[in-house]
């Protein structure tokens, strides 16, 4: 029983560390987004709070925390409260299967633990997709429970959008699954070791670079970001599904959106860009005689790749105008879906031929 207790304690520690890292990342992102947008538009961004505005996220958090909590008249109180939680939980739960660092096993009190992944389950990526598809409930129910036509329209738009683009996310991943022959993210990243030419985006015999493009575009749509932010299009719908939300509940939706961004960036770097693997074989720290510290280099590479994807999100927001709704649907179904399907066919044929030649 003590063994069980120890394992529970270790897992809880891992969970709290990762949730902490994600929340800190989200705080950083709220600042980084405004700073990056500011620089791209040739202005300063937030400058008032702290040196160069670096304490702005904390000011925002405190402000949201102490805001009056308003429930609109005629709103369904139960669902109005439940919706932000329903949006937040699926966003955080996916981090359980993300490998943050090398696939090490540490002995601790007679137990072998994997320090850089909470749970290496054999359906890893399917688990993330399953819970990502549930994130739509928070948005739809939030829109419905607010008793406001703008919220309802925002919720409905988001439902249609998320379902359409979820399909493309799933199909763009299939090529990677064919190449690596596993659903576990740990296996997939391990198989990409030894230089960037082994990463799934560039690997022989079927580079998944088109799949990566489809994946990134679809996840931008799935996280309701510009240019696919129709559920919260301010010129048409005020603020979409969270028009009526304020204070802490609004903060939860905000947190969920950014945590989703972090999650899809982590998945993108783990699936397509080798995860924690450096773009050269091995690690520099083990070359200079510190192999026990190589995990630092690996986790830094993972962070670098993830942050690059997050930067791409900001970049898109600064660059592209919002799509019209029919353009959004046509783009998803008539452009991205055929590309993803063609990628699956080409990848399976290429992998089959490569296996026959071997």
């Amino acid at each position, binding site marked *: 029983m003590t063994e069980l207790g120890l394992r529970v304690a270790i897992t809880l520690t891992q969970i709290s560390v990762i949730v902490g890292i994600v929340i800190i990342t989200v705080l950083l992102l709220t600042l980084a987004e405004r700073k990056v947008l500011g620089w791209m538009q040739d202005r300063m961004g937030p400058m008032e709070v702290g040196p160069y505005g670096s304490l702005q996220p904390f000011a925002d958090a405190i402000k949201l925390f102490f805001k009056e909590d308003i429930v609109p008249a005629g709103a*369904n109180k139960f*669902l109005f409260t439940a919706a932000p939680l329903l949006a937040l939980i699926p966003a955080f739960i996916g981090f359980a299967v993300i490998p943050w660092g090398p696939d090490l096993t540490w002995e601790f009190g007679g137990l072998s633990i994997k320090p850089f992944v909470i749970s290496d*389950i*054999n*359906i890893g990526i*399917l*688990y993330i*997709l*399953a*819970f990502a*598809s*549930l994130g*739509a*409930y928070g948005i*739809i*129910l939030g829109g*419905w429970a607010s008793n406001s036509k703008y919220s*309802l329209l925002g*919720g*409905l738009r988001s*439902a*249609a959008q*998320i*379902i359409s683009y*979820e399909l493309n996310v*799933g199909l763009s991943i299939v090529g990677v699954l064919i190449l690596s022959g596993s*659903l576990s993210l740990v296996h997939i990243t391990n198989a990409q070791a030894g230089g960037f030419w082994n990463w799934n985006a560039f690997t022989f015999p079927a580079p998944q670079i088109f799949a990566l493009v489809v994946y990134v575009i679809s996840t931008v749509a799935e996280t309701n970001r510009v240019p696919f932010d129709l559920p919260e299009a301010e010129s048409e719908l005020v603020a979409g599904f969270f028009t009526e939300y304020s204070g802490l509940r609004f903060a939860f939706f905000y947190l969920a959106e950014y945590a989703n961004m972090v999650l899809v960036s982590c998945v993108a770097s783990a699936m397509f860009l080798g995860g924690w693997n450096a773009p050269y074989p091995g690690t520099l720290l083990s070359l200079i005689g510190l192999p026990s510290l190589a995990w630092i280099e690996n986790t830094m590479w993972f962070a670098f790749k993830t942050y690059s994807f997050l930067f791409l999100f900001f970049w898109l927001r600064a660059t592209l105008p919002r799509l019209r709704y029919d353009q959004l649907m046509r783009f998803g179904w008539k452009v991205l879906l055929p590309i993803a399907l063609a990628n699956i066919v080409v990848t399976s044929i290429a992998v089959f031929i490569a296996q026959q030649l071997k």
Partner: protein
Amino acid sequence: MAYVFFGYFAGVIALTAVLVVALRNPVYSALSLLVMFFHVAGLYVTLHAEFLFAVQLMVYAGAILIFYLFAVMFLTEKTPDRYHIQSRGSLLIGGAIIVEIAVLAGQHGVSFGSTVERTASSSPSEAGNTEAIGQLLYTSYLFPFEVASLILLVAMIGSIVLSKKDLSESPPS
């Protein structure tokens, strides 16, 4: 331990399944259906069928039920009563089904526990659940699989034909 989990999942499934038809508010009905799907997925996990767990959540909870909610949200809360009118005939059918369940349960004896153990022991969890399903699906059950996909294709075309009413009227361009 396995019995505790099974009891919990089965109890919640039964309760929420009743709530789906018993609740007056259609949105609440859809939500209890969501809770039910979750617990059915949980049952799959206790049977080491992780692949089915993910598919259950993705297909039923993530796609189908969202479309239900989509439709249900357009029904206002004030006028749900005409969706709750039931004919007398349904009582007859319901009674017949209950009698049938009772007869079946009497024939086989109530032996849920043994069924659980039998399926759990025969599940190929060591080789990887997903691989096992893939192997079976594309070798032994290839023909039923293809027939099912053909049926789904027909359903897809059918729904397009039904929803696009001007399809036949529009001149060929």
